[in-house]
């Protein structure tokens, strides 16, 4: 309860300070801040916005020897090719399902982990768990997929050998497309949960322990403490990360997917990144690669804008 009161207090101070600065010359007050922002600003202009001019090739049949200005213009042909590609439906379906699974299962995993870690009282235990689950992040996808094969292969995989020795049938984990999605999400969780938990742990580091002490005095159970103190403390970070993830809803980890894709699971495993790799990158067709990229980004942008709007409706601070 005290938490909410505090937040209101903060909000009111904020709005009063906004009002004040509007009346005075905010520009002058902002000078030191603008100086601080300048290097970053220049970075964005030089290394992000100038190159963005290259997006014009989405409307061209880009030829590296002719350059951006002299390559033949094709209008919306590339977009037309993408939108009329009979595979588009499949790509969208696969991407959205995998993304959805990521958001439902993979996104909360590190949050849960961070909360559990913060609830552990033995420091050595917390630290060891934290360090160990953080390690897989440093294995490349090639290695993670290799380990998966060693464990799950049909012919000689560890798990299947075990199943057979226990008198069960071997299961085609890797070549049966039904297992693909579960495999993909579990690999993500295995590799990245511990790593992604860091950011939430950092957010929890800012919580005032007195809040918990007060809660104990009020007789709140541990569950209630998590619910009323820990979760609210994570709220703004969770919201921001969630919105930003929505912007990348069609990015599913190109390297990862390419490594676990095979002809048998292609029907569920083909996503935009692998599609564009096949149809653009490998052919040196930068125009088409860019077109697909723009398409993905526009969808991401729309989702971010919607989510941001929604966040503000619920009275939270969005990403812009």
């Amino acid at each position, binding site marked *: 309860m005290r938490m909410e009161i505090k937040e209101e207090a903060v909000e009111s101070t904020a709005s009063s300070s906004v009002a004040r600065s509007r009346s005075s010359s905010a520009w002058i007050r902002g000078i030191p801040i603008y100086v601080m922002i300048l290097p970053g600003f220049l970075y964005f202009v030089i290394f992000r916005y100038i190159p963005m001019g290259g997006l014009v090739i989405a409307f061209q049949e880009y030829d590296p020897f002719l*350059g951006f*200005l002299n390559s033949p213009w094709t209008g919306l042909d590339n977009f037309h090719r993408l939108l009329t590609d009979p595979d588009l439906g499949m790509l969208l379906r696969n991407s959205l399902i995998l993304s959805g699974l990521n958001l439902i299962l993979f996104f909360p995993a590190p949050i849960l982990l961070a909360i559990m870690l913060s609830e552990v009282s033995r420091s050595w235990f917390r630290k060891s768990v934290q360090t160990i689950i953080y390690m897989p992040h440093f294995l490349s996808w090639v290695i993670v997929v290799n380990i998966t094969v060693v464990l799950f292969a049909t012919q000689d995989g560890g798990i299947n050998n075990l199943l057979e020795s226990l008198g069960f049938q*071997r299961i085609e984990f*890797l070549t049966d497309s039904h297992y693909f999605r579960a495999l993909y999400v579990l690999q993500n969780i295995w590799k990245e949960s511990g790593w992604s938990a860091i950011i939430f742990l950092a957010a929890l580091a800012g919580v005032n322990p007195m809040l918990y002490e007060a809660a104990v005095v009020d007789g709140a159970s541990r569950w209630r403490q998590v619910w009323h103190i820990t979760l609210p403390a994570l709220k703004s970070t969770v919201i921001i990360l969630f919105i930003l993830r929505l912007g990348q809803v069609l990015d599913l980890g190109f390297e990862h997917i390419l490594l676990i894709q095979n*002809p048998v699971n292609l029907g569920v495993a083909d996503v935009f990144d692998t599609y564009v790799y096949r149809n653009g990158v490998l052919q*040196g067709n930068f125009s088409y690669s860019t077109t697909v990229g723009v398409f993905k980004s526009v969808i991401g942008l729309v989702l971010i804008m919607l989510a941001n709007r929604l966040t503000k409706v619920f009275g939270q601070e969005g990403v812009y």
Partner: protein
Amino acid sequence: MKRWLPISIAAVLAMGTIAGCGDSNDSKTNAVNSENTNSTAPSSEQSSEPDSDKADQSKKLDIDILTISYGGANWSNDSAIAQFLNQKFNVNLKFQAISQDNYEEKLNVLAAAGNFPDAFLVQKPDYLKWRDKGVFLDLAPVIDQYPNLSQYLGGKESLQFMNPPGKIYGLPYYQIETQTSFGIRKDWLDKLGLQMPTTIDEFYDVTKAFATQDPDGDGKADTYGFSASLVQNKTDFKHIDPIKAAFGLVNNWGVKDGQLISWHTQTKELEDFATFLNKAYKEGVLDKDFAINKVKDPQDKYETAGKVGIDDVVPNNFYQAIVPKLKKVDPNAETVQLLPPKGPTGLQGTSTNSITQKIVINAKIDKDKQDRLLEMFNYFLSDEGDVLTKSGVEGADYKKDGDKYVKLDAFDQDGANLISTLLLRRFDLHTQIHLWDDPTTVSNVDQWFKNNEPFKWADAAAGLESPTATKIGTTIDQKFMATLIKVIMGDQPIGDIEQAVAQWKKDGGDQMTKEYNDAYQATQK
């Protein structure tokens, strides 16, 4: 903040550059080229003048070479071979080898920036696409001045391959054509009292016996007949070419009645082939993981687990790595060459590569550099250079011990053989034979190649171009493979192959066939 000023000014300049693409010099030349692509490239004019005193190496030159890496070491400027070459040719050689998955991207970026390296490796699609744009130096006028280039790279015909008449825009990167063949566990055959299989039916009986009759005698049903994988972009099989050939399938593209046809359209042959593999899969003869195997997995499984009866063998590698490794797993293991089994109609064929990669010299660089590069290339192919690029520098990479040679650690660490493995080498079966290799091994390797030679099974469209294939070939081939593999794994009925063939033709296969045939007819004239 001050140092940002020059950078931001530079950025403004950069905008101008982007618009023009590349250095102002380059973009001008590019523009010229694009306007008259049919006329000769600007630089060929220079190089057509015979070089009178090419021994002039007084000026130290920076030489940039870019090629594809297949693993192993990187080029190091400190290595003995680098120092040797830098001194011998008065150059500062930068040799970049980057892995295949990034190569295409980097090369295209460099193309766009007008920043090609001085010499680089180009794969078939890019070579055909860029060949006539004046970016590769035409070697035809000068090739005679470099005798080793004309002598050791397969001669006129091979140099001319994939080039317009009278032009030579690149030097071929040699690959042994009939490089692999089946090896079979002789000790298993003997144990089970079986004969060497000669037909595809016998092949099946033998591999089935390997899978079911416990050839390794450990009382467990853990062996299988043969393994396979897919090629890297998953458009074809790898390691079972002799089986494909036996059923009458062509190697990607083949000639039937004067016309090019694709293996994707050989419905009858495909059905026979798929039926065969389906049976093998069901009965545990074929590796259950063939669809997810990486290219090298079947070989690893053969040599490290000792549970497979057949392997697709690269002879060099076989004697240097497979035999010793396999001996550790099973001291009785003995592998012998198995010639391609005869199909129902008596057809036989062995896995066959096409030589389509080219090393090109940048047409835009100074003539000095071009000449220096050509001299270096000429040297790489000389007797001395051949030894140098395969075995490294004496005293650093190997040493002489009595009348024998011994390899030193630096050889592997410095990648002293990078030039021969990744860039340029003679058309010579001994691509991987070093000074210190045992002569019996060398003659054994030669024997494998010789035995294989008669069963060449070439891709008839190797040097030909089809824009449709470049654009969507991979996609439709992958889809086709998906059906074929599902049929083999029993997830789809054999009848689905007919639909897959029809779908492949409709999705662009017919167009590809037409384009390849047009290109093919043009070469036949």
